[in-house]
């Protein structure tokens, strides 16, 4: 293998902070977050795009962190579970996860939460089948999903109640 592995300088926003640094071009976004920035809340469960544990938000959209090169995120706005937590944007869903025991080992949780986030923005109520379809790219090995669906459903309903006049 070449000793002078290709690297590029990238500049992006991660959890509200501007980051500018060099990265190996073969490094995927999840590894960049974990290894270069110490954001270990993003997990690697398969590294070939199936399990969803590495899901992060790129310009607001859920993206598989292992299927995007870090260098591709140049100029992008990236948010991880750490950032979302500090911003409080999903505090209600996180509380619902706790109350409903929607995490056991917790390894899938960050990806699950970030994937669920966009569902909470919907105006029409998501039924359970829709919630299940929306989360179908995120594998959970512990719960059997029911508690996760419950937590998303309850959080949507609570947000709606709050928004209601």
């Amino acid at each position, binding site marked *: 293998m*070449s000793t002078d*592995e290709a690297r*590029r300088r990238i500049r992006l926003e991660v959890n509200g902070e501007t980051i500018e640094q060099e990265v190996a071009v*073969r490094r995927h976004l999840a590894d960049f977050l974990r290894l270069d920035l110490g954001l270990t809340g993003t997990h690697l469960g398969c590294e*070939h795009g199936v399990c969803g544990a590495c899901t992060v938000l790129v310009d607001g*959209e*859920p993206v*598989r962190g292992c299927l995007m090169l870090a260098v591709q995120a140049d100029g992008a706005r990236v948010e991880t579970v750490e950032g979302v937590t500090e911003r409080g944007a999903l505090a209600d869903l996180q509380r619902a996860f706790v109350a409903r025991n929607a995490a056991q080992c917790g390894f899938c949780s960050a990806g699950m939460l970030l994937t669920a986030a966009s569902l909470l923005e919907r105006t029409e109520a998501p039924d359970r089948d829709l919630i299940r379809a929306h989360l179908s*790219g995120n594998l959970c090995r512990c719960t059997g999903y029911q508690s996760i669906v419950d937590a998303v459903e309850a959080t949507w309903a609570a947000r709606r109640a709050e928004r209601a006049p």
Partner: protein
Amino acid sequence: MKAPAFDYARPETLEEVHALLAEHGDDARILAGGQSLMPTLALRLSGPALLVDVNRIPGLGAIEARGDGLQIGALARHAAVLASPLVAARAPVLTRALPHVGHVAIRSRGTFGGSIALADPAAEIPACALALEAEVVLEGADGSRVVPAADFFLGLYETAREPDEVVTAVRLPSQAGRRFGFAELARRHGDFALAGIAASARLDHDDRVTELRLVCFGCADRAVLADSAAARALGRRLDAATIAEVAAGLGADVEPIPSPEADAETRLHWARVLTARVLGALPTTPEVDA
């Protein structure tokens, strides 16, 4: 499971892409959505020397009206196509098929043109392209050409695209008067199909079939237009007997290949079952107004 080392270029024009492809030949791979390419790198199934990231080329992601039809830019993300009211109005079979393409996060990045260019035999988008009578726009170093979808998909991951060409858009003619059907059988939601059917049809005032484009995917080495089977429906109403005849005729058009999941005969059986279901459930009125 780390990708082998490679170099990376991010051209901002098609000319630059062509120059890079000309310079690096087979050692270069185009990186669009990356949702299929990146896993092959992680698995070290391919080791290109250079990835040519086309994501920053302006203008390739547009979804726009083109006459009474549509043009979908190659870099349009699956999520954008799925959410597009224009697509829902002018090519509703796409709106029905796209929820089956991967999952939410895959659809955030995966591109329409990438799926066309990859030509996975079990993928939904190439099948819909055939049902919609789509044309693939290819830009080569020496100019562009337009290839009908029916001539584009040649075999297993094999297309009419030349090595120096880039898929830049997919054009859909007016679908006026058409009604659509789509069904697939997959082991899990979001998986590639064990077998699938996409169909478009035009019926006359007497409900007799004047046109039927029946596409079988996930069965053979590519999505296949089952023209001889579909021809059995021409001039007839889609009653149970006609539908059964079309389904039975599928074998003449589709050469099923065995998969780890099922033998060839079983895959063809599934295609027949789905054909019957799709044709039996076609909307009673055209979905796209004339």
